[in-house]
């Protein structure tokens, strides 16, 4: 039995389905792995901890990864958890914003500083606006409440599988503008990160194999997998998680170990053009296929 520590990006939620199911179904054990799962409260911590050697794997965001690598953190993507963007630009469904162009002069809330400005800028440009036309406010983790309470007119950084359901349950349904439909190159929302200098490719390959099996199980048995997931913690048993679970299934990477190099090249160029990073680096500095090592 080999021990591994995995840092989630945030509290356990349906996005982490494959990991939880693999754990519960014993797939990790089948691979000879004993996995310790740790959930932090600040999503910017786990990559640092992995870079510092505190854990073997962390869940991170592809857009953030580019910035982190450019700031010199020893990090590399070794696998994919969620293979599409989840991020969306949300407005109130019955609110005054009917199209993105209506955002001129309005306030947009965001939570994790970093790439949100670049993403929003690109979306705005695609709709004839610039960042100068809106006011951006960092509202921390109160995205939905800030929007529902009318403190901001739109939010960016909320997830389509989560915040949208949440708002609907609260009776203030939201409407999502999908970033990848508004000029932002598509990317992997959640990826597995490791320290390239210390990573153990064999361990990681076995880990990914287990999550791949779990993903297949989830896709094949959506109801049963929800039951298993919900049983792991009482706080997960509510309507929101159940609905989010259903909406997330189609977004799990079916081949977690597979690497689409083009995605990383395109996004690297996108960030460079937005001025967030300097010269681009080769994909091999950002992401690897552990199976190929």
């Amino acid at each position, binding site marked *: 039995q080999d021990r591994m520590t995995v840092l989630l990006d945030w*509290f356990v939620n349906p996005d982490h389905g494959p990991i939880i199911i693999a754990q519960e179904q014993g797939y990790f054990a089948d691979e000879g792995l004993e996995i310790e799962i740790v959930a932090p*409260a600040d999503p910017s911590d786990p990559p640092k901890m992995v870079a510092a050697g*505190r854990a073997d794997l962390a869940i991170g965001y592809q857009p953030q990864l580019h910035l982190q690598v450019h700031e010199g953190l020893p990090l590399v993507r070794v696998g994919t958890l969620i293979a599409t963007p989840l991020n969306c630009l949300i407005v109130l469904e019955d609110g005054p914003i009917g199209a993105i162009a209506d955002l001129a002069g309005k306030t947009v809330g965001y939570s994790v500083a970093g790439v949100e400005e670049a993403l929003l800028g690109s979306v705005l440009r695609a709709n004839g606006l610039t960042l100068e036309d809106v006011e951006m406010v960092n509202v921390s983790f109160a995205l939905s409440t800030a929007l529902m309470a009318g403190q901001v007119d739109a939010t960016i950084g909320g997830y389509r599988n989560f915040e949208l359901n949440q708002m609907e349950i609260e009776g203030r349904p939201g409407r999502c503008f999908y970033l990848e439909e508004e000029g932002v190159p598509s990317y992997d929302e959640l990826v597995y990160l490791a320290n390239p200098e210390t990573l153990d490719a064999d361990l990681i390959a076995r880990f990914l194999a287990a999550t791949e099996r779990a993903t297949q199980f989830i896709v094949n048995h959506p109801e049963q997998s929800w039951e298993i997931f919900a049983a792991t913690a009482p706080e997960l048993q509510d309507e929101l998680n159940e609905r989010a679970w259903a909406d997330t299934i189609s977004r799990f990477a079916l081949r977690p170990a597979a690497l689409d190099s083009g995605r990383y090249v395109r996004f690297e160029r996108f960030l460079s053009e937005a001025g967030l990073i300097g010269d681009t680096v080769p994909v091999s500095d950002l992401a690897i296929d552990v199976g190929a090592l």
Partner: protein
Amino acid sequence: MKAARQGALSTTLRLAGVTVLMLGLWQALVALTDTPAFILPGPLRVVEALWTHHALITHHALVTMTEVLIGLVMGASLGAATAIVLAASRGARALLRPVLVFSQAVPVFALAPILTLWFGYGLESKIAMALLIIYFPVTSAFFDGLMRTPGEWLEMASVMGATPARVLTRIRIPAALPALASGLRLAAVYAPIGAIIGEWVGASQGLGYLMLFANGRAMADLMFAALVVLAFLTLVLHAVVDKAAHWLVEHQTQSPDSKVRRIVF
């Protein structure tokens, strides 16, 4: 015995009264400001959530309480010790005091990644956080008290050929106990906040975790239920420390000081 029991009864009654008052205020606030329930739910909804989730809340409350108690004891001890060192040595004062202020000026939240790097995601980092947050009020209040020893006593001690250590233990520390008590009362209120912040930094248990979790899910009622439990625990802790502080001060002196309390309260 009887008096004590009556006292406890009246305290309970008063607390009950205050609770009702606060619930009323809360309901009024919600109604008046027209705050939506997903930001500030009314007390009824919160009580409901308390009932629905009582097992969950109890579990997490126990975890937090453990962190708080350990943090409080360690923070108060360390704080008192630091104050004594500062009071004892001019050199320590010149060097350490700014360092202390400096260290406090850094929001603990910013230190969180460093603390988790050093202490990991377990109980230790939460205790460290609670400790850090109460360390300064205790140090600061006790130190101020230690520096306020009436000069005549110090002069008397110096004529008597007292050793500095003995002046400290026999005169300055006893004379500063009311100030220490003041610091401890503050600490009792801050220790839970410290633990909560520690949990926010990274935890899978505790009321702080539960709050963030509920917040992330816009479950305002669960979040406020956890908050109410936390506030209640703090209230109890404060009452206990207040009693202990009174005892500490009363026990050592029958001076006019203690008489006042009897008159004024």
